[in-house]
């Protein structure tokens, strides 16, 4: 098991969602994928995508006074 971190801070639609999917595709089952971003819609859409794909979102954390977020996903 490994941790994969992707940084999509400053990126807009559809990049955070797409980069998250690419990372999940490359990761192995059990890996932890951590996505860091700033795009507001992706904060709710990444968990929606995970739910649709049957993946567990472990944590959603707001940072920098709500300007940044970090989502942890178990592949």
């Amino acid at each position, binding site marked *: 098991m490994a941790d994969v971190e992707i940084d999509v801070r400053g990126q807009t639609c559809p990049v955070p*969602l797409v980069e998250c*999917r690419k990372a999940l*595709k490359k990761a192995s089952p059990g890996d932890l994928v951590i996505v860091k971003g700033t795009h507001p819609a992706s904060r709710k859409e990444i968990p929606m995508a995970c739910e649709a*794909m049957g993946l567990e979102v472990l944590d959603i954390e707001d940072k920098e006074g709500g300007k940044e977020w970090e989502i942890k996903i178990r592949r």
Partner: protein
Amino acid sequence: MGEKTVIILHSGDMDKVYSALIIANGALAMGMEASIYFTFWGLMRLKKGELDKGQLSKMNMLGLGRQMIKKRMDKANVVSLERLMNDFKELGGKIIACEMTMEIMGLSKEELRTEWIDEWGAVGSYIQEARDASVTLFI
């Protein structure tokens, strides 16, 4: 899986090509399958070096409006169509090119970005593709 989005891209306008590729990438990113059927003016965007050469569907103003929107898109950090296409292919997206359009426009396969194209077809290919799709759009 099992869910699918199938888009017909009839327009070759830059903003509409963006719409098609963003929606298709979104579908793939959310765990669906996705296909884009390129036809008529849309197919022109598959010619070598032409993906981002479409004009703006409204307020093009001989290219001035297009230039302005491009600048604003850069400022908003919107990625290029080339990047969206590469992501689409990397995530397993499928591209179908319309053969009748090729005939009408006098296009040969050598003029197109064949590395992106998975299938050459006609209306039957679209219907077959869309038969079990839960989302299908005409852009």
